[in-house]
């Protein structure tokens, strides 16, 4: 097992190298000019050219890539073109809100979606099943920002239970932290709940047809134990897989959710950087997300072995 984990971690190095080259090249050929944004609308073309030269953006592709790549190899993600702050510092400023949002969303999603899927499978073809599946279709169909606006209107503006926007660090207290995350996490979790609930239902339906389930029933095992102890564990592999894949969904959804709820997270940092063409930040954030995604996939693979002892690497 440890050999497998070590090999997988080693494999991340060429993956990250490829991602780095791909992102850098993509940004190089993408239209846009940060110098023009910095210079402002009244600037003359000469001003823009001088700022571009000052930023070193007029140098050849290979020189810029080599310089950036060697800095990244030393753990230096560079400096933001606009703020002049180190990219690592800007990512560090933003990582807590995004991480908090994703963790709370994951908790809400898992604790709501898995029971929903299990119950839907158990009550297959009844009105309960149809309600759950209708919710799943709704979760997939309604855009994140629409859900966000509706929740903010109801729970913040009308009922005045929760704040509309913003983020409070956890060091300022657990409740203020959580209070600001409830609406965004529910918003972001909507599609995720729908996805997990559907997969859980499908996987459970398959397992519930198995002989050992019939045997357990014949032995008089309670319905609760059959569902949550015997069936769910064997249905868990696809569920864990989809939770892992869904993290990418969360990263994408966080961009919109953070904008709607004015959360100063990595999603907004990325969008702002793309709109301004702040290349070092875009490169740094994409590299970081890629690394996180590779790690999550590794974690999912390791979890398989815990859930199913027959799986060996």
């Amino acid at each position, binding site marked *: 097992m440890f050999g497998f984990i070590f090999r997988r971690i080693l494999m991340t190095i060429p993956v990250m190298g490829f991602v780095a080259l791909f992102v850098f090249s993509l940004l190089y050929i993408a239209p846009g000019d940060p110098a023009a944004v910095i210079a402002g609308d*009244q600037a003359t073309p000469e001003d823009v050219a001088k700022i571009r030269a000052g930023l070193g953006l007029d140098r050849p592709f290979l020189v810029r890539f080599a310089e950036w790549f060697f800095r990244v190899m030393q753990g230096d993600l560079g400096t933001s073109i606009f703020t002049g702050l180190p990219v690592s510092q800007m990512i560090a400023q933003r990582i807590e809100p995004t991480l908090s949002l994703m963790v709370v969303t994951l908790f809400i999603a898992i604790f709501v979606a898995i029971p929903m899927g299990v119950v839907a499978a158990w009550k297959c073809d009844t009105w309960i099943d149809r309600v759950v599946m209708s919710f799943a279709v709704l979760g997939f169909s309604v855009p994140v920002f629409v859900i966000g606006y509706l929740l903010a209107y109801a729970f913040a*503006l009308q009922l005045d239970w929760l704040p509309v926007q913003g983020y409070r660090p956890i060091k300022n207290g657990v409740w203020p932290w959580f209070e600001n995350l409830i609406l965004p996490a529910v918003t972001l979790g909507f599609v995720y709940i729908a996805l997990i609930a559907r997969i859980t239902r499908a996987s459970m339906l398959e397992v519930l047809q198995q002989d050992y389930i019939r045997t357990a029933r014949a032995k008089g095992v309670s319905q609760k134990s059959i569902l949550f102890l015997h069936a769910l564990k064997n249905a868990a592999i696809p569920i864990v897989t989809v939770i892992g894949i869904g993290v990418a969904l969360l990263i994408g959804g966080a961009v919109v959710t953070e904008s709607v709820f004015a959360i100063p997270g990595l999603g907004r940092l990325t969008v702002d950087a793309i709109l301004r063409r702040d290349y070092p930040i875009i490169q740094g954030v994409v590299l970081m997300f890629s690394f996180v995604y590779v790690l999550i996939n590794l974690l999912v693979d390791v979890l398989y072995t815990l859930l199913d002892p027959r799986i060996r690497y």
Partner: protein
Amino acid sequence: MDRRTFLKSAGTAALVASTGGLSAPALSQGANAKVLRFVPQANLANFDPIWGTQYVVRNAAALVWDTPYGVDENLVPQRQMVESEEVSADGLTWTFKLRPGLKFHDGEPVLAKDVVQSLKRWAARDPMGIMIVAQQQELTAVDDRTWKWVLKKPFPKMILALAKNNSPCSFIMPERIAQTDPFKQITEYIGSGPMKFNKGEWVPGAKAVFEKFDAYVPRAEKASWLAGGKNMLVNRIEWVIMPDPATAAAALQNGEVDWWENPISDLVPVLRRNSNINVDISDPLGNIGAFRMNHLFAPFDNPKIRRAVLMAMNQEDYMRAIVGDDNKLWKPLPGFFTPDTPLYTEAGGDILKRKNIAEARKMIQEAGYKGEPVVCLVAQDQPNTKAMGDVTVDLLKKIGLNVDFVATDWGTVGARRAQKTPPGQGGWNMFHTWHAGADCLNPSSYTAIRANGDKAWFGWPTSKPVEDAIVEWFDAKDLPAEKTAMAKLNTAALEDVVYAPTGFFLGYQAWRKNVTGVTKGPLPFFWNVGKA
């Protein structure tokens, strides 16, 4: 500790935490009243008002850095850091004296050498500064409080140059910071203005914090825009960046923010219905909508075709697309200058009143249009440019031009408009933008009106009558002479179609009723703004 005890302890801790047991103490009402939460028009992505000349940077900089002079609400320059000035009889030597007691945020006194270095950096970037430098003999500090600017030729607009609120303003920094190359960004944000910038709390894209500078000595005169006494009634100003207008509207209604600089017109009715919110015009100088045609390439290298486009335009279509049905927010603009200001003129503006599609179509055929595609860049992420772009495309089709509509984002437009290559090779034929009315009062900071070919703004128009009129304005010694020059300029710029003005429009601002002292102006003025 066994498993059950551990779970009990953890559960108790979670309960205490969730009921607020671990929360930070809430701010008292008094303390809260000293904090003003403001939603600016855009993200404060950098904070060097000379290197980056976006309006949002200028607006924040006006809190932190002071200027030698400031314009008041009558558009008249007034002394700000300066105590007195003297100009020699031949108009060549300007001597300025700083008022006493001025200090930077690091406690150091403001000296003439700081002013001199700051003006050198500013003059390298500012159009008026560049004109002064072109005529400069020397710019030197005479003593700690006095500096002198010696010129080869009189420059009657000197005080206007040092007072104007157009970006870049002549912000005064400590000498060591002002020594930074004007095309590189400063890293220390120390000024002598009424508020200090809290760099430690700055989260670009999310928050910027300003704290009251206790050693600031305001002028005794009543505050008026950038002039007069800048008395701070709050201790802390937090700029909360909100990319989503609906969120900003909800936050204002919920009392989570106090003042929103630029609510979009769609949300204004909602805000008006809230009894705790005031809504009013933000900047009486408003904005001038524009699209620019590339004078280097066909078909717009032909002045007849440019004039045909002007003749066909209906500015109401553009303005309705931007502001909707609110008639208080727009007016037609047969010219290039801000309405209701001293130098406003409509001379030569008849072409913009004709709105004659048939005649324009005929003119285009007579001008020898060969069906070349018109590459029209339209930034979709800016509501104003998108609205204008949609109207223009319809207009061009109606007058028989072959349109290549390029829907893109503002970042791409910003880069592509600088390309002088032919439209089919990465260049362009037209793009849309708008100019702050404060920049369009006269030619002093009006880069977009210049028609000096390669050195002109994007589109690179060439027109000797336009340039002659600009020189005439700069040399004008009194208001009647300035007005004469402005009439010539407006006429010539329309004749050669330096650009196409699409109309004049205003915007709103909104604030909670417990906030006092909010004024209308080209930028948000925070001095004398209080919060109950």
